[in-house]
């Protein structure tokens, strides 16, 4: 909290009153806060919270007064050459002016566009200051400036002992890292109700996430329900923080990781590979089936076409031969004897014209039955001589 960081009391430095306000905040206010922090009589108050302490303020004021009145030589008030004893009119005026200037400087403060301030009147909440120049008359009114629109983020599940391992409803373990982004919706509540907002947000976020994960099953978290879970968790965090009146608004919740733990991730990946394998096997089988079926269809077509070809061939040949016969027969019926003779002779002519012929006259062999000659004919010799003659 910037509030408690501001312990550099400019009061300590005698001449640093004006220069001490270089952090843009009223040095008086800062000194006041710091004084409260170091308040000796506050030792039992648990954690030392910044408290404006009148005792301290006054003590410091007295020191300052001494410096202004007596320690002129130290360059504090920026006055002239008045001696410590002879406090002249001019010195008083200058001192008063300087005091007034310091007071004005301490009482006005600026609030940047992304900020809001909370003003406390004598320690109790009075108003919220909007961006711009604001007036908080010191020391009655003190103020705190908060960057309300700035988005703060809490990473949960990263870099811790258990590495964000969570137990799901079906007793599986899942590794979840997520980020909660928040800002301040009500600066006064934010300031006054939670001692440790950041730690509270972290604890509440983790609790909410574990609660939701603890009643979900593993598979839906891994697959598609992340958006639903994020929404549910966000709602739960907001609801819990609202019961604390925390003035915190959860802007969004980002899942950085929702994976199976490192130890088993290989097995999860293998399931994905198995799904791929399954597809591969099915595709290969489909390819095989396509090939086989195409071949079978081709073979079928081939067989059918061959059969049709045979049919055409056989029928055509038969038709042709039959026609030829019919044609010859028709002629034959007109002159049967002559045609018959002619056909015979023409055929014999062609047949005998092409073959080697041996004509044996049975009568010329001399007497009793020429048939006795035939077995003795040197048929092979005859053939050879026949070939030689050609």
């Amino acid at each position, binding site marked *: 909290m910037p509030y408690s960081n501001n312990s550099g009391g400019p009061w300590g430095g005698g001449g640093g009153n004006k220069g001490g306000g270089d952090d843009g905040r009223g040095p008086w206010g800062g000194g006041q806060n710091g004084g409260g922090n170091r308040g000796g009589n506050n030792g039992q108050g648990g954690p030392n919270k910044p408290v404006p302490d009148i005792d301290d303020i006054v003590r410091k004021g007295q020191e300052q007064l001494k410096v202004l009145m007596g320690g002129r030589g130290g360059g504090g008030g920026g006055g002239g050459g008045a001696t410590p004893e002879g406090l002249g009119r001019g010195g008083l005026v200058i001192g008063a002016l300087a005091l007034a200037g310091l007071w004005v400087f301490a009482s006005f403060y600026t609030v940047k566009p992304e900020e809001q301030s909370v003003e406390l009147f004598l320690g109790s909440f009075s108003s919220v200051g909007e961006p711009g120049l604001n007036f908080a008359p010191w020391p009655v009114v003190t103020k705190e400036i908060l960057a309300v629109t700035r988005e703060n983020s809490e990473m949960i599940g990263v870099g811790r002992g258990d590495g964000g391992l969570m137990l799901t409803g079906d007793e599986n373990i899942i590794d979840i890292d997520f980020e909660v982004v928040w800002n301040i919706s009500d600066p006064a509540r934010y300031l006054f109700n939670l001692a440790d907002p950041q730690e509270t947000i972290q604890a509440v976020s983790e609790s909410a996430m*574990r609660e939701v994960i603890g009643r979900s099953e593993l598979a839906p978290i891994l697959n598609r329900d992340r958006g639903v879970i994020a929404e549910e968790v966000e709602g739960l965090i907001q609801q819990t923080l609202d019961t604390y009146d925390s003035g915190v608004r959860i802007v969004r919740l980002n899942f950085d990781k929702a994976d199976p733990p490192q130890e088993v991730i290989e097995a999860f990946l293998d399931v994905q590979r198995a799904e791929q394998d399954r597809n591969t096997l099915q595709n290969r089988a489909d390819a095989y089936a396509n090939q*086989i079926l195409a071949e079978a269809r081709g073979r079928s077509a081939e067989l059918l076409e061959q059969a049709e070809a045979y049919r055409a061939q056989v029928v055509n040949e038969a038709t042709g031969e039959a026609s030829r016969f019919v044609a010859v027969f028709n002629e034959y019926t007109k002159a049967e004897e002559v045609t018959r003779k002619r056909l015979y002779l023409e055929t014999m002519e062609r047949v005998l014209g092409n073959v080697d012929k041996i004509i044996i006259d049975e009568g010329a062999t001399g007497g009793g039955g020429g048939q006795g000659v035939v077995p003795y004919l040197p048929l092979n010799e005859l053939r050879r001589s026949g070939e030689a003659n050609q």
Partner: protein
Amino acid sequence: MTRTTVLIAFVVGILFLAVNAVYIVDERQKGLVLQFGQVKSVKEEPGLAFKIPFIQNVVRYDDRIQSLDTQPLEVTPLDDRRLVVDAFARYRISDVVQFRQAVGAGGLSQAEARLGRILNDETRTVLGSVSSNTILSADRVSLMNQIRDAAIIQARAIGLEVVDVRIKRADLPEGNLEATFQRMQAEREREARDERARGEEAAQRVRAQADRTSVELVSEAQRDSDIARGEADAQRNAIFAEAFGRDPEFFAFYRSLRAYEESLKGENSTLVISPDSEFFDYLKADTGRVE
């Protein structure tokens, strides 16, 4: 010492006294006015107040909600499965006097220790009376409320108001993690094997169906082609029968002539014939006429 110095010293003294007589309690605090250790008054509302200077002093307590995160705690639910539970509480000081009396000058850190013990006790009691499935379910909220309600009553004794108790973690102990991982792994393996086996099954089925369809297709085609061939042969026979049936005797003559011509074709046929053959009728007839 001039008069002025005396005057200034006097004014400063008065101022010092006045300043010691007032005190401010911040919006975030509650004040307790003590007189020699005895509680004189409580200032709940923020703002300016008065006290007797020097004799009384003010102790301020934080009025905001404090956080308390307990150490991880092993609990044994009804079904004897151990769980590591990590709870946290939000609380604030509600009764400053009681708080002061209870923790003395120890302040918040001592209160925290005592509240932590209360919380651990209640967590153990509440979670020990249900089964682990209940803790890992939507009932967790009601368990958290039970712990909170019990803690509220106990914490009242030390002047604290428990705003909320939540279970942050409810995990398996470190030793059981390995077993859980193995179970998860085995489940995935089962899934992967099932997936692959189903792939094989489907592939085999597709292949077998393809083979069957292929055989069916080819055999059907074979059948149809044989039918077609048979029809063709029949048609041929019919054509021949129709044509040759007109004169079987002439067909025999005509077909024989063609058969002679076909079969006696070629160079290596040798025919031994007798001149008595009809073909030579006129070869021997010197009259040029056959008797």
